[in-house]
């Protein structure tokens, strides 16, 4: 066990790799608008969003995936427990909100997109 002083000093965690790794982009969790996109796509194509092909490298072989949080779990029990957690319930609530995109940001600043008639005539 360590001496336990690490996190008491201000900014000490910024020099410790174990904590820095958590903020690396490869470990970045999915954004809500990304997940909303996935859910929409699953809706359109009819393919469920949480089925993956068996992959050895993913925990649980990729078979126990939570769509709302974008996490893989080791077995069905872990997944079921996760669905009861506060994190999952909060995520579900966030996903129900309207999707925020670059378009919303531009609308908020007063800019819209010019919509022109198609250059090569309408498809019949």
């Amino acid at each position, binding site marked *: 066990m360590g001496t336990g002083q690490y996190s008491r000093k201000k900014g000490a965690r910024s020099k410790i790799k174990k904590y820095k790794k958590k*903020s690396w982009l490869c470990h970045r*969790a999915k*954004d*809500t608008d*990304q997940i909303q*996109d996935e859910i929409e796509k699953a809706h359109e194509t009819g393919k469920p969003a949480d089925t993956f092909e068996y992959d050895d490298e993913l925990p649980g072989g990729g078979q126990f995936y939570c769509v709302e949080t974008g996490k893989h779990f080791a077995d069905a029990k872990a997944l079921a427990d996760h669905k009861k957690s506060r994190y999952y319930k909060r995520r579900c609530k*966030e996903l129900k*909100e*309207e999707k*925020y995109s*670059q378009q*919303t*940001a*531009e*609308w*908020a*600043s*007063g*800019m*819209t*997109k*010019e919509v*022109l008639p198609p250059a090569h005539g309408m498809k019949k």
Partner: protein
Amino acid sequence: MRIEKCYFCSSPCYPGHGMVFVRNDSKQFRFCRSKCHRNFNKKRNPRKVAWTKAYRKTRGKELAIDSTFEFEKRRNRPVKYDRNLMGKTILAMQRVQAIKEKREERFFANRMKDAKKEQKAQARVEIEKGIELLAPAVANREEVMRNVVDKARERIASRKRNAGQKIVSGGGDNKADGMDES
């Protein structure tokens, strides 16, 4: 050179400022400064962060629906350069901006119409709460009022005197006397 809008706060991202984050799904997120970038990393919803334009517009703090917003558009078809058109566009932009600002001011004034009443009511509540602080002042109030009234009387009297002297002598140097007395 396009001036893009920040993904988080909707302010313009000028060249040499801010950052672009490209996600795994190839979506680009532009930020005007590290404040917005850091808030994005914390996964905050811009619609819930009070200082962003998205929050202000959705909550009705600012003018959101207006015909002046139809002018600024993202145009992806280049226009052949025409000097007259360019000049006219610049003038139009200035005019539209002036109109937009006036309308926003009007919207704000409308929104704050009933603020004075609220402020007075709140001031009243505050005075009642802190009445102990004002107690010595209330005791002195009569003296202070008497002082004020006396001074005002002096001023009026001196002014009348100066006016009388002016008529008599027709000189303008009495003003200095008046200034000294009051």
